[in-house]
């Protein structure tokens, strides 16, 4: 029978309870940043040692301080921003929000998903974490990716979405 009941209230994104990313992933993020800056510091050290030492001997310490400052600032932004990364799953769509200065919330309906991917990086693997990405048609750079949820959950979500798509 054809049914078409009037809808009084649409389900709203505002009433959704969002779930945070596991704290362990913050460690992964910080390890990544730390590794990156270790490389950057090594590079800077070599550069100063073999080149800049002679050219601008008075300013080399400022360079270290500058890079250290950037490192601390990025870490701080990531730590504060981390608590803003949240996701939510509904019967028919998946949502993700993030950002401190640039807030963003994205929702992808399951019916438009082309495929789902679960990836785990080498560091994430140590903590049994994974990222889940969904792709829709068209320019997929702006689709949704949830980084650093527990791997078992990521696989569950993937399974759930796959089921919904095939229905």
């Amino acid at each position, binding site marked *: 029978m054809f049914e078409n009941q009037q809808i009084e209230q649409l389900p709203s*994104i505002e009433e959704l309870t969002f779930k945070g990313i596991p704290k362990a992933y913050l460690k992964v993020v910080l390890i990544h940043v730390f590794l990156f800056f270790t490389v950057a510091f090594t590079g800077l050290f070599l550069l100063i040692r073999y080149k800049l030492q002679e050219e601008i001997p008075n300013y080399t310490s400022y360079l270290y301080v500058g890079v250290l400052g950037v490192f601390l600032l990025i870490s701080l932004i990531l730590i504060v921003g981390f608590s803003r990364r949240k996701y939510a799953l509904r019967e*028919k769509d998946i949502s993700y929000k993030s950002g401190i200065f*640039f*807030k963003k919330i994205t929702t992808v309906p399951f019916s438009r998903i082309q495929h789902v991917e679960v990836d785990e990086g080498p560091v994430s693997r140590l903590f049994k974490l994974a990222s889940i990405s969904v792709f829709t048609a068209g320019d997929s750079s702006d689709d949704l990716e949830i980084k650093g949820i527990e791997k078992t959950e990521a696989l569950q979500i993937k399974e759930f979405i796959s089921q919904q798509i095939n229905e």
Partner: protein
Amino acid sequence: MSSVHRFTEFSKQSPKGILVIYGSLLYKLLKGTWFLFFLFIKGFSKMSEVTLVYIYIGISVVLLLLLLRAFLLYKNFQFKIADNHFVLKQGILKKTNTSISFDRIQNINFKQNLIQQFIKVYEVSIETAGSIKTEIAIKALPYERAQELKRQILLTENPFQDDSEISKEKPLLKISVLELLKVSLTENHFKSLLLFLAVLIGLYQQVKDLVKGLGKTADFDSYFDEGAAVIYGSLILITIFLLLLIVIGVLSSFVRIFLFHFNLTVFIRDQAFEINQGLITKKSILLKKEKVQNITISTNPIKEKLGISFVIFKQAISGKVAKKKHKAIKIVGCKAAQITKIKELLFDTEKLETAEKDYVDGYYKTRMCFRSGIVLFLFNLILYISFEEVTLFLVNMLLIPVFGLLIHLSFKKTFYKFSSDLLLLGSGSLGTHYTYLPFFKVQNIQIKQNIFQERRNIVDLVFQTAAGKIKIPCIKKEKAIEIYDYTLYKVENSTASWM
């Protein structure tokens, strides 16, 4: 349907295809090496006879090798239809086997460049969307075979198609040369000029690279510097230069419009548009109603006076949107009645008429001012660094009012309204654009808010479609959330296929 080709066995294209492939290979070669020819002609008198003989032999060998390559390409290019799939094998050394399911096929287009027109064959290109990145072009098929292939591929989806009646049909739109002149004259010549300059810069880079290879960069640059110095010195020359730019702008508008839209005719058949256009390369496109993701109807003040506008149809594309802009289908010179018909076929716009227009928040203006401010600042910085002449900064007297006007217009023209199924977004600065997007075509939806917007409780709402993004800038958060929820509701409850 007398001599029906069934395509059940692997078959090659028409032997004339060798010629077409050879032509395109030659074209590619010329595009890469035209400057060498220029050098050759310039140095012709200085060369000894022996060198000349070697050069001639070299050229003939290259030409022969290309012909051989064309023949092999032709010989190894075979296709068939099997089990609702289009199957293609190609490649001389590296063999590729491609198979595309019919429902993945978005469009089958016919094209004819000069060679193809001359030897009376059609290039059939098969466009796909989604994750498959293949694009297939069969270079040379006689008209009947091309039609038959198209019919067989589209038949499974659309069994009511019959070609026999086309000739009697009245086209929805037929643009005469006179109308095309009107369209060209009212184009945005500034944009045409920029496009032309972009092509020029591309050529300049190519030449420069070649000259660099020959070790003559200094000469080449000084040649240009001298020229620049002469122009810089004289006010009359600057005026002439500006006039020349205007003429070039107008001319390139004409060339662009005539090249792409010459002899434009549009038919409506079985819920689909058939669009034919082009001067040197004739294109024939069949655009199905359900494949259209969104359309934009645009006009500008002068075109509006003449009652004409152009329409851009956007279809699903895979990969990066910016690179595939040419895939959007544009038709020009539409009158109001034709626009209505196009809209009627695609969507139900009736309810939209009664809907109320909503304008965007004033912060949009502030943001545009801020962004233009940055652009102007950078521009002045560059001026300051590269020239010592103070009078040059007078240019700002012209630029600031122009920017101001554009921002004001852009703010005034940005609005949105929606009916139960359809969103209409107005935009533009000098021109006016109306974008129509059915809610169920949306792929995902996003709300964005920066720290300045947060204070005013406004957000940007971004609809991601298979044909690119559509953004409503700076609207009240409550309103945005309402549309957000509603869009999701429409998408999740629709059973119609978005493609």
